[in-house]
């Protein structure tokens, strides 16, 4: 990927092996791509292709790997406020209210209290939960919890929004609704987004570019540009053609449901 003029994030020949029960398991092999500022990149693949592992490396939770993950040319050493993360499980702290959970992300921001309060309120409003600021996570539905988690990930105004199968645990209707929301929110915030998902429809709907991974070991099968002229109609022929193409690459021809149930 040398053609990217100003790559903000570079994944450079990254490999990762785990020791599982005394055996070396290769999770990622020779992964290289870059992400430009403002881009929405999706990484799709079946479970076990190492896509979540890759996101952990970008987040800086794991620094023991081959190759390099660089941010503005500098190797990522640790997590930072320039990268916000939404996990598959919403991972809200059950002893903090919705606003408390969002505010927890601002602890290292160095902002004055009033400014933090304003940012928390603003981001809860962004995800449509301004009326649930004082609710406990146990009182929120799965979709609402994930909205809070999205607000928490964005409240520091990160350059990168990392999404680790954020909608994977939600029911189909909530998932569709939140996909629309996510598209709107990312556009509104102007953040660069990196989405890991096993849902090809979701990737085609949201991303500008899709990295298709194949498993054993996790490596890039294809990189697909999504060129739908901003028309993200889930039933448009161009949309379906692109989706089927990617499903083909994943080896699941004309059986779109198989991907979802295989995960």
């Amino acid at each position, binding site marked *: 990927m040398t053609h990217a003029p100003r790559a903000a994030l570079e994944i450079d020949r990254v490999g990762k092996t785990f020791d599982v029960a005394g055996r070396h398991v290769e999770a990622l092999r020779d992964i290289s791509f870059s992400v430009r500022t403002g881009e929405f990149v999706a990484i799709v693949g079946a479970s076990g292709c190492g896509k979540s592992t890759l996101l952990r490396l970008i*987040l800086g*939770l794991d620094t023991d790997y081959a190759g390099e993950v660089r941010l503005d040319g500098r190797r990522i050493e*640790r*997590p*930072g*406020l320039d990268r916000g*993360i939404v*996990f598959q*499980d919403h*991972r809200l*702290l*059950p*002893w*903090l209210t919705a606003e408390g959970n969002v505010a*927890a*992300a601002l*602890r*290292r921001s160095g902002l004055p209290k009033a400014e933090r309060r304003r940012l928390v309120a603003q981001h809860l409003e962004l995800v449509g939960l301004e009326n649930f600021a004082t609710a*406990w*996570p*146990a*009182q929120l539905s799965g979709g609402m919890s994930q909205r809070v988690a999205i607000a928490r990930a964005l409240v520091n105004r990160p350059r990168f929004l990392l999404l680790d199968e954020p909608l994977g645990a939600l029911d189909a209707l909530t998932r569709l609704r939140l996909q629309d929301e996510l598209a709107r929110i990312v556009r509104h915030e102007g953040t660069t987004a990196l989405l890991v998902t096993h849902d090809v429809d979701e990737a085609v709907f949201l991303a500008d570019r899709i990295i298709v991974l194949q498993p054993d070991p996790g490596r890039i099968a294809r990189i697909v540009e999504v060129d739908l002229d901003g028309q993200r109609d889930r039933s448009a022929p161009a949309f379906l053609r692109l989706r089927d193409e990617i499903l083909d690459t994943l080896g699941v021809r004309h059986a779109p449901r198989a991907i979802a149930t295989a995960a």
Partner: protein
Amino acid sequence: MSASARARPILMGLLVPVLLIGIWQAIAATHLVAPYILPSPALVLARFRGELDGGTFGGDVLASLSRALAGFAIGAPAGVGFGLLLGLSRVAGRLFGPIFLAYRQVALFAWVPLLSMWFGGGEAGKVAFIAMTAFAPATVNSWRGAAAIPAPYRELSRALTLRRLDHLLLVALPSALPGILTGLRTALIYAWLATVGAELFLDIAPGLGGRLNEGRDKFEVDLMIVALTVLATLGLAFGQLGAAAERRSIPWRNR
């Protein structure tokens, strides 16, 4: 739930005690057992009234209660602090964990001779023993609670780049709170049990244990049954109180 449906488990819980009192009354009524071995319920009740009216009984209960609370107030917070230290600091856990586990292997009453040498058999020795007894469960449960912070929460803490103190206040301590509360509740019950032990095995002093000793020395079974019943009732109350406080302290649960 209606009032009658709520009352039902309570009524069922009272069934067996009432039945036992009935059997006790029936045995006493046959006069096969001498009243000084097994006095009738009526006699015991009369003794209870007598103790309340003219005796030192109120003072005895108060003495035992304040002893239990004094020991709890020293031992339980120390146990919570020590347990959190063991659970939160890997170094502290490795340094102090083994010796604490060894300490737990010694039956608590085995400490009585040593404590009475060090602190005497008076008030200080008794409170020291109660404090030691309360210390153990407070430590174990706080330790367990602090050591079992779920890995996803620790990961979140790292992703949010929280500093140590923020991690402690926002993630570690709330996560350990259920364990801490269980520790405090158990410590309260243990403190009450230890109070009677201290009163039985150390110097005679006002208190329910002292009255039990007195009952044995004077062969007054009615007094012993009164003291035992009060001990059980207050112990039960401690347990209920602790459980209620525990529920109250975790507002994010069960909503």
